């Protein structure tokens, strides 16, 4: 298996890890809102760099999440390509000028404006991805539910997330065992058969997996009810930590970035930074 393909918690000694889950979640939400609102290249570039700095502060190495990172990069590139495919002159639309670098065919041509527009788009992702990854990788899963409750989400939803984290490894193990047992009956799931047969054969795993997962759900919901889950509107949390100064600082920074993002847009009356005029 590739390293940490499922993006699970990586415990380290760092200030990022020491932030409470609630602070990290709030930071992530504010930060992504800021990045979504603006197309200001300078701000996005600064946010990307800050994100990468935070990543190195967290002592999690990029290569530990290589698989996930490559996957996301492919998605981002596909997205950029799709924008170009469906709207090749979006850059000119936005920036009002047209500097052709390389004409292709029909309405497709590469212009400075298009490249710049796509660069901004890319920066939006690169500003958010490190922070999002940090939230996932540096938050103790035990704190997820508490942190969601901390920003006002119903604890029942928060606990659904926590339970998913708890049971994903079990379901993975079920999947593995079921698939092996089906293969031992002569049902080939390896690369030797045709794709269609393989797809059909995968159904042989699905039904037992769904049924055994349903049985799990019944057990767990009984166990939870028997221990009073859902009794009150609120609940306390064993793992929740009180807010400290660093949490407030993190929140302040995130709010500052959001304010800057909004401020730049309002001040200029446009979400774009235009180097062509």
């Amino acid at each position, binding site marked *: 298996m590739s390293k940490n393909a499922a993006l699970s918690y990586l415990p380290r000694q760092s200030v990022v890890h020491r932030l409470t889950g609630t602070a990290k979640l709030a930071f992530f939400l504010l930060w992504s809102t800021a990045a979504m609102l603006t197309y200001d290249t300078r701000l996005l570039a600064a946010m990307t760099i800050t994100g990468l700095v935070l990543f190195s502060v967290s002592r999690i190495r990029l290569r530990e999440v290589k698989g996930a990172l490559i996957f996301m990069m492919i998605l981002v590139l596909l997205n950029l390509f799709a924008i170009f495919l469906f709207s090749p002159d979006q850059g000119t639309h936005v920036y009002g000028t047209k500097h052709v670098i390389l004409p292709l065919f029909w309405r497709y041509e590469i212009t400075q404006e298009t490249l710049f527009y796509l660069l901004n788009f890319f920066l939006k992702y690169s500003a958010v991805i490190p922070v999002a990854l940090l939230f996932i990788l540096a938050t103790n899963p035990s704190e997820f539910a508490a942190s969601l409750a901390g920003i006002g989400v119903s604890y029942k939803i928060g606990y659904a997330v926590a339970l998913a984290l708890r049971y994903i490894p079990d379901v993975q193990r079920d999947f593995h065992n079921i698939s*092996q*047992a089906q293969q031992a*009956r002569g049902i080939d799931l390896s690369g030797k058969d045709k794709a269609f047969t393989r797809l059909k054969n995968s159904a*042989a795993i699905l039904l037992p997996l769904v049924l055994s997962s349903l049985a*799990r759900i019944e057990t767990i919901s009984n*166990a939870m009810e028997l221990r009073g889950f859902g009794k009150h509107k609120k*609940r306390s949390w*064993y793992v929740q930590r009180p807010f400290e100064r660093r949490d407030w600082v993190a929140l302040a920074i995130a709010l500052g970035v959001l304010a800057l993002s909004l401020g730049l847009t309002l001040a200029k009356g446009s979400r774009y930074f235009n180097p062509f005029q």
Partner: protein
Amino acid sequence: MSQPIIEFKDFGFQYNAQAEPTLHHINLSIYPGEKVLIAGPSGSGKSTLASCINGLVPFSYPGTTTGSLTVAGIDAPHSSLFELSKHVGTVLQDPDGQFIGLTVAEDIAFALENDQVPQAEMKKIVDEVAGLVDIQDRLTHAPHELSGGQKQRVSLAGVMVDDVEILLFDEPLANLDPATGKQTIELIEAIQKRTGAAVLIIEHRLEDVLWRSVDRIILVEEGKIIADTTPDELLASNLLIENGIREPLYLTALKYAGVSVTPEKKPAHIDSICLDEADRQMVCDWFANTAPAVQQEQAEVLLEVQDVTFGYNDGQTNLEHVSFSVRKGEMLSIVGRNGAGKSTLSKLICGFETPNSGRILLNGRDLVGDTIKERASRIGYVMQNPNQMISKPMIWDEVELGLLQTDLTPEERARRVEETLKICGLYPFRKWPVSALSFGQKKRVTIASVLVMNPEIIILDEPTAGQDFRHYTDIMEFLRSLNRRGVTVMMITHDMHLMQEYTNRALVFSIKRLLHDGTAVEAITMPELVKAASLKETSLFALAQRCGIEPPQAFVQRFIDYDRQVREHE
């Protein structure tokens, strides 16, 4: 006497989804501090009875109740699950499934969190309760880092955070190896002594629960209470056998020897049972007069495992230097504690994993390089839970599934499926949907779906887990009949009865190694082996010692052989 803490008065219950009531006219009182075993075969209603006490019935599984049920002074059917959970702590059957938290501490704290207990107080209670069940040094562990016994301790701690007056255990021994089961029974007793709570244990494995005293046994059958008496009284009667519950083996042996078991002899424990000189002599005479079984001649070697070493990850091993061979037509057990490498071994034989070193031969041919699919025509593998194997809604399709991948013509396939269904006693059901079958019948379907490939050897993982005596006998007699047809059968099991009743030979694994390759009797009588592999010594051994029979192993072997003959003629 004080007020009963649980009182059923002419109580009845019918699930909304069912046409008939599950419980009828239940009258039962349980007093504070009592320890009660509720026994009964599957489907007798014993679990429903327990669910009425903790409130799962009728609040999670709705239905109509008649009569009255008072639990800790509360009118149970008209209160709520939450109210009852303050008084009744329930430990469910599956220690893994009921582990809610991501770590031990969170799981123990779960009920406190729901009660909005402040964090500081919560941590104090968790530490205290964790100490009670001796899990305090594992507080930050995730469930997959714990053994089955440890998970059960966590479940127990999780219900003890509320000062409950009633502790309810739903088949606590079902998923545990024999030694851990024994420890669980000891733990339950220790907790009861400390807290003074009333303890209800629902189990059909009577002998294992009776490892420690219980005050009363309630026998449930067809939704009615048919016995409510002391263990001594019940064991002296024929009620257990009549109702499909296995009686302790030493009692069966005494009965074979012609000793009459009366309540006055205190038959509840092998250590305390009073046997006078005449009784002991009867056992000795029986031993002397019973002929030893004839040894079967040895067939040629079918499967050979030669010095196999394997690890799932680099730098660590899960099996080391394992060597043994299996002869054609054998039926053998693979036993040992969880994580000892039993399942790993079966994965290597089926080809799910490849050994790091060593060879596995079938009929003298090295299997290396054969894919799982290629091996599948010769080696069959049956999982513990049939629901994890069945992938077609119809029985016929399910059994035919493996054949679809072969070059057989449709006619040949139909012939093979038909033949297999007949062998497995499923032919009358061939047009049925799988969902209409009982658990035991589903098990048969999964065995049929493997058998249809015509394997020379089948490996079964816990073939009878969670089954009562009746279903157990059903499945095992079926496997024996297959074995007689020439199929070699290997079974991974925790069930000491299964091992001694159906297999002559046992491979005992302990911590990555094959510790012992010998008779099943050795595995349940050699003290060092029993200890190292988390097995359980049979009570027959103690009986032989008490009667002064030398060597006691010979008595155990004689009993097993005789018992097999008796059951075959039934």
